[in-house]
Each structure stands twice: as structure tokens, then as C-alpha cells.
């Protein structure tokens, strides 16, 4: 029972990571910066709670807002950067964050023990303040926000920006506000998620928040679906449970994980959630799906 519960808790955390990536994908920005914000959130929450005794909620909110502000500062120069260039710029950000915390040492005495980030060794001894109630609450709140966004003007504007920025802008959509806003929102979610992660596992090391984790966060969203908010949730849950389910295969566990991800992407290029929605929807309402365009070399 505790095993299943800890898997569920991990799912919850990964859902937050996935949704933070999804927030930027909604405006067409394929961003790998969320891992950097996750790291900032983890370290800052760890410091605020374990070194300065702040309760969890204010610490999480402070970190979330801090990350959102950095997100705005990052989002502005990235406004003109599109597509794969944006992805690379965000990789650069996450790597700089990783290097920063790799070298960051700042400890205070709490009682008889030194607590704080210790550079390459990592940040040990973070107070454990998070279990499934906290994770579930945050996940539900974030889900509500996304559900609201999806059926509101913001969602409409975000979709327009994602499809065609020029046309959206000529139709009166405020591109800057939408892009920077969603970027900051994604940063906020990642910051809070990272904070929950730190206070759940009690140990964070910046080397765990690098390019590999960034790729995994993309897996969640790509495998689950990028069009609706339940896509990343599906992807995160599936890809959190999968490595556990594969434990029976022993040492080849992660190899099989990668193979399964490849197979899933080839079978469902738009993501499981979207493929199911489109195929079931077309069947149910007999409405045509959009035709793919012709490209060379078929």
C-alpha cells in the first residue's frame, strides 16, 4: 500500500513537471527551461523551510512567484526567438542554472547541524513537509486553473498564437502578454513543483536537474498529448508507472522504457490523449479530422 502511495505521489510531482512544460507548449513555445525552474524551486524552498523555518505554503508561494519573475525576465528576450532556437535557448538557461547550483554553497547552523546547499554534494537534510495531501492539493489547484484557461479567452488567444502569430497579432491578440504570461505561468508551476519535490525527497542535487530530466519532461507531454491539459497528465502517469512496472525485467528496465517511448511516439505521434480524442471524436460525431499536408519523399 505504501509502495502504491509513493508511486502515486511521484505521479503527482511528475504531473506538475509535465504541466509546466505544457503551459509553454500551449503558446507554441517548445521550452526546456522548466527543469531549471524546478531546480530553483527545489533549492529555494529547501532553503526557506529548512534553513529559515518558513512553513511550506508561504515557501512554495514565494518560490513560485520568484520563478515567475525570472520567467518574465527570460521570456522577454525569448519573444523573438522561435522554434528550435527557443528550445536551445531554454536548454542554455537550464544548464546555467545547473552549473550555478553545482557550485552554490550556503549553509547555516541549525542546532548543531549545518544545513544548506553544499555545491556538488547536493542539499541534504531538507525538512520533509510534503506527502500526498500537499501534492494532491497543488495538482488539483493547477488542474482547475488549466481547465479554466482551456475554455476561456486566454486559451483561445494561446491557441491562436500557437497556430499563427502574425494572424493572431493582426486579429488583435496581445502576443507579448500571452507568450510571456504563459512562460511565467509554466515557471511558477515548475517552481512550486520543485519545492514540493525537495520537501518530499529531502535531498536535491542540481546534477539531477539537467538535460536528462528536461528530456523526460518532454516525454511526458509528447507521449500524453499536447492539445488538451489531460494529455500531459496521462503522459506523466503512464511514464511514472512504466519504469516501476518494468522492474520485473531487471537490468534492462530503462532500455525497455526508451523502446516503449519510441514505439508510443511512432504509433501516436500526436500523443495518446489526442489520438484517442480525435479518433473517438471522429467516430462519435462523424466529423472530419484535419488532413495532413503533403511533404517530400513519401
Amino acid at each position, binding site marked *: 500500500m505504501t509502495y502504491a502511495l509513493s508511486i502515486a505521489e511521484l505521479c503527482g510531482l511528475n504531473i506538475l513537471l509535465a504541466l509546466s512544460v505544457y503551459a509553454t507548449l500551449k503558446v507554441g513555445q517548445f521550452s526546456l527551461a522548466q527543469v531549471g525552474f524546478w531546480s530553483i524551486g527545489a533549492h529555494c524552498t529547501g532553503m526557506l523551510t529548512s534553513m529559515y523555518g518558513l512553513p511550506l505554503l508561504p515557501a512554495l508561494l514565494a518560490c513560485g512567484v520568484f520563478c515567475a519573475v525570472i520567467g518574465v525576465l527570460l521570456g522577454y*528576450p525569448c519573444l523573438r526567438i522561435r522554434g528550435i532556437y527557443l528550445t536551445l*535557448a531554454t*536548454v542554455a538557461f537550464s544548464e546555467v542554472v545547473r552549473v550555478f547550483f553545482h557550485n552554490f554553497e550556503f549553509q547555516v547552523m541549525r542546532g548543531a547541524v549545518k544545513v544548506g546547499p553544499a555545491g556538488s554534494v547536493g542539499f541534504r537534510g531538507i525538512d520533509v513537509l510534503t506527502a500526498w495531501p500537499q501534492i494532491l492539493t497543488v495538482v488539483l489547484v493547477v488542474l482547475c486553473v488549466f481547465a479554466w484557461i482551456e475554455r476561456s479567452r486566454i486559451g483561445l488567444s494561446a491557441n491562436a498564437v500557437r497556430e499563427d502569430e502574425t494572424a493572431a497579432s493582426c486579429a488583435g491578440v496581445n502576443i507579448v502578454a500571452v507568450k510571456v504570461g504563459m512562460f511565467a505561468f509554466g515557471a511558477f508551476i515548475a517552481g512550486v513543483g520543485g519545492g514540493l519535490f525537495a520537501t518530499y525527497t529531502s535531498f536535491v542535487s542540481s546534477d539531477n536537474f539537467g538535460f536528462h530530466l528536461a528530456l523526460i519532461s518532454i516525454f511526458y507531454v509528447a507521449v500524453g498529448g499536447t492539445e488538451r491539459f489531460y494529455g500531459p497528465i496521462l503522459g506523466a502517469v503512464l511514464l511514472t508507472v512504466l519504469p516501476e512496472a518494468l522492474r520485473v525485467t531487471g537490468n534492462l528496465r530503462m*532500455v525497455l522504457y526508451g523502446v516503449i517511448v519510441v514505439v508510443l511516439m511512432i504509433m501516436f505521434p500526436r500523443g495518446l490523449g489526442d489520438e484517442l480524442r480525435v479518433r473517438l471524436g471522429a467516430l462519435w460525431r462523424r466529423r472530419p479530422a484535419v488532413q495532413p499536408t503533403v511533404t*517530400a519523399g513519401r
Partner: protein
Amino acid sequence: MAVFEYLIGGLLFGATYSLVAIGFTLIFGVLNRLNIAHGATIMVAAFAGAYISLRLGGKASYAVLALAFVASLVTGAVLGVLVRAVAFAPLRNASPLAPFVTSAAMTLVLEEAFVQLSRNVPLFSPEFSTFPSPLENLVFFVGPVLVRGVYVVIFLVAIILMALLHWWITHTAMGRAIRSVEENPTMSWLLGINVRHVEVKVFAVASAVAGAAGCLIGVAMGTVGPFMGANLLLTGFVIIVLAGLGSVRGAMICGLIVGVIEMTIVGMVSASMKEAVLFIILFTVLVIRPQGLFPGPEANRD
């Protein structure tokens, strides 16, 4: 004095970075997609070379070294074609996200596979396997500056490869086909160029070059490891953006530049500072001049 050693060493070693970046940027040029598995291809090819060297007593024989080099080239090419067939070909009509994910997943598969291989194959060892070569201890002096012989050798090999590649792209029919596909794949297809054929060739050549880089780097460092590709991939990102995505000539030059920057900072400050500097350069270039230092003509892509 030490500065000169870093400059020269960086320039020489940077040639391998150029090779890494060339392969990476060639694939991007033709497909407009980044091959995340490029780093893993380098790693696997390096392991292939190391295996040959370990098995056939490469420590003392140049012939075995040459054989290891060829093995790396071939492994790279084969793996490249495989990566294309699995990660890119089935997803040509999907959004760029899909092949990004499949090539990243393949990287995961290969890295984990080689972690297991390193543990279970007696010739290799879990953290870093050695890549013995007769060049290991070769040094000579240019005036008061110490230069590692192995760096000179890899520099020469890399330059020869780049020259061959440049000739191939600019003077052969296949090279022309590649350049036309880079600019407008649909138009090329309509004009009778077998785009799939071109893609396969490009992947094979780009990955073979990557394999060569893997072998040269393995020889220069004396070791190979399952995660050596990951760092090279990130360095590759920096180089191709600095050069301008798709520019082969730019990749050649910027590889050397990055090699110099890297070696100088590692020598004079620290290893992790080098990473920070490189990525700050990457970000700055993307904000200020995203087309890079050697921008190509505006391609009319799908």
C-alpha cells in the same frame, strides 16, 4: 606560457568538436530537425573503436588504431541509418516534437544499454573503459610549449576528413542534391531528386563523421564512457548555433573556436565555469544574432 598550451591544445582538440558539429548541422540542414541521438552515436562508435583496440592489443600498434578508426566510422554510419529509420522516417509528417522525443528516447536506450554492457563485458569497466593507443604518451615541444602528440594527430585526421567532406558537398552530384534538399525539399522532390535517398546518405555520412569524432576523442582522452555523448551533444548545440544552423563551414570554424574557449577556461578557471560560459554565449547569440556567425541564404523550407 600555460595560455599558449591551452590555445594550441584547444585549437587541436577543437577539430573533433568541429567534426561533431558538422554531422549535427548536416542532419539539421536536410531535415530541419535536431538529431538528439547524435551524441549517443558518437558514444557507441567510440566504444566500437575502443573494443577493437582492447581486443587486438591497440596499445602498441598503429595498424590496430587505424582499424579501430574504421570500425568507428562504420559503426557510426550504420547507427545513423538506423536512427533515421526508427526515429525520423516514420514521423516525417508529425510536428518537430515527435522526432525530438524519439531520438531522445533512442539516446536513453543506447546509454542504458551501454551502461549494462560496460558492467557485463569484461573488456570494459563500469565507469570509464579505456581506449589504448600508441599515441598516449607522445609529446613534443614547440619552443617551450608542450604539445600532446595525440592532439596533433587527431587534428590532422579531422582536417583531412573535413576537406574530404567539403569536396564531396561542393563538387559531387550528391552534394548538389543535398544542398538543394536543404533549401527546399518539396521542390527537390518535384524535380526528381530522391529525397529519401539523400536523407539516408546524409545520415550515414554525418554519423560516420560523428563516429570518427568519437574515436578521435576516445583516443585523445584515453577513455570512453556511456555518457560521453551527452556532454558532446550540448557542446554541439553551442557550436551549431554560434555557426548558424545548417552551415557546415561555420561548424568547422566554430568547433575550433569553442575548443579554444573551452580549454582556456578549464585551464584557467574551472570545468563547470566552462559550461556556464558556453551556455551564456549560446543564449546571447540566440537573442542578438540567431542566424549565427555564418548565416546561409534564407531557405524556403516546408
